[in-house]
């Protein structure tokens, strides 16, 4: 066997790919390796505290957690969480209704009807609103609903105040959902003789709805744990609210109050309440994921 057949023929410098440095240095450098490790690491760093937190809440809440926790009212430093659970859900219902009423209409009008300039003004306003600290929203609710409207510390005041807090989130999701519909879809619908309202209801809304719903559920997940908007607008009532204008307790308020309560056992209630909130928040987030997945399957190919 002759060696010459295997020996690589000498390459001219201009043909030698490995010696051509015009593309810059190409090596797997230590930098590439660090980036390769750093990404999973940062994810881990972000996830570990959350899992740790969830773990400790479960460890401290579950031993004392029974069915009675869900069905009995709080009493002193003991009892269950029936009243704050019902209160939280009712406040959340009222808040979501408020946020959807304003956020949905606002987002729809901004995305579909306002011109560039008008939409810009509304979007900046909404962003500013979203950046207002929740305690200030609470103070606003106190001044407006509790005092000026004369609703007192109540389910209504707390629900509407929390709704104000949640509105920018719903607004942003709605605005984005409708504004990101490809313009050729709108042209095609109107070109088929659809009236603008028919386009909105029959074409745009089925496309935008999943994103809007996701936004609503995310706003609920953010809002349900908020304490500040409720702190000045309702009180930690120990029985479920019997009407709109009586105080309604909430899980987040109970965490706040029971943590400060020196009586033994109170801290347990705080952890049980935290556990319940965690379940609600996780549930809402799972719902968001499911909606997103289903929508992606249905709308695949639309946005290219």
């Amino acid at each position, binding site marked *: 066997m002759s060696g010459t057949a295997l020996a690589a023929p000498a390459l001219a410098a201009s043909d030698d790919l490995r010696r051509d440095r015009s593309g810059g240095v190409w090596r797997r450098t230590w930098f590439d390796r660090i980036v390769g490790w750093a990404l999973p690491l940062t994810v881990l760093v972000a996830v570990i505290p959350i899992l740790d937190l969830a773990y400790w809440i479960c460890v401290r809440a579950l031993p004392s957690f029974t069915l009675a926790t869900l069905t009995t009212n709080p009493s002193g430093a003991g009892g269950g969480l029936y009243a704050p659970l019902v209160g939280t859900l009712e406040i959340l219902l009222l808040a979501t209704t408020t946020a959807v009423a304003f956020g949905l209409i606002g987002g729809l009008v901004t995305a579909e009807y306002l*011109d560039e300039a008008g939409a810009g003004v509304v979007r900046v306003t909404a962003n500013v609103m979203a950046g207002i600290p929740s305690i200030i929203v609470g103070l606003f609710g106190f001044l407006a609903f509790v005092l000026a409207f004369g609703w007192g510390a109540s389910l209504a005041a707390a629900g509407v105040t929390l709704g104000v807090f949640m509105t920018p989130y719903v607004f942003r999701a709605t605005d984005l959902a409708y504004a990101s519909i490809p313009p*050729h*879809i709108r*042209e*095609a*619908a*109107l*070109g*088929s*003789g*659809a*009236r603008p309202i*028919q386009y909105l209801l*029959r*074409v745009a809304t*089925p*496309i935008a709805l999943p994103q809007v719903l996701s936004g609503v559920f995310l706003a609920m997940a953010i809002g349900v744990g908020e304490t500040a908007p409720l702190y000045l607008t309702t009180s930690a009532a120990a029985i479920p609210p019997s009407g709109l204008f009586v105080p309604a307790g909430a899980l987040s308020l109970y965490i706040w109050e029971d943590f400060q309560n020196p009586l033994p056992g109170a801290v347990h209630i705080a952890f049980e309440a935290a556990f319940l909130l965690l379940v609600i928040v996780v549930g809402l987030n799972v719902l968001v994921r499911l909606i997103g997945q289903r929508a992606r399957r*249905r*709308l*695949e*190919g*639309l946005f290219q």
Partner: protein
Amino acid sequence: MSGAAPVPSGPVVAVEKLSVTARGNRKLLDGIDLDFAPRSLTAIVGPSGCGKTTFVRSLNRMTELTPGLRIDGRVLYLGQNIYGRSVNPVVVRRRMGMVFQRPTVFPMSVFENAAFGLRLVRASEDEVDSAVTEALQRAGLWEEVRANLDGPALALSGGQQQRLCIARALAVRPRVLLLDEPTSALDPAATQRVEATLQRLKEEIVLILVTHNVAQAARVSDRIAFLHSGRLVEVGATGEILERPREPLTMQFITGRV
């Protein structure tokens, strides 16, 4: 066939001194006069930016969806000015359907896409069924989708989606179909199927086809209108225009020099 309505004797669409002006007095179209006879396929050709899209969009008042355009002159549909005071643009668009450069199916089933225009006017279920079937047949898509009418339209190929858009426009039985470069996003095989569909349809209704492709115009049209810088330079029978254009500009365009 395109419904029971008798074919009119005069032009179906008559464009008179049509001008479209953008902000800053920029003329996108300048004094276009052009008639469209029943059962014809007119190709609108011209270099990029000459106003082809603007022209077809002004035939069914789609130009109104772009703010800042002023329209002068008249577009007569069976003798009635579509820009007349008491004419609703929605009604005009139902008579003159439009197909765009890229397929624009909606995220619904194949059937519901084809039925879209009929649902807008609350057609009865029986009417919708028969009109959808007929439209899919006329668009040359029926055999391919009949087994899967309830499947998602977005799962169809690009060429099938484009023919579905043609079916959607046909389902309301328009007399005029405006097509703005309907095959420019399709591969040769899909293009060929759409062209076959167009050749069948021109025996029934008025087709106005924008194309940047002279070869396509040669294959499917009876008549070519050549636009340049917003003006109608020349219009005539396809063979005439391709073989003996009167204007030097037309000559330059069809030989690929503009």
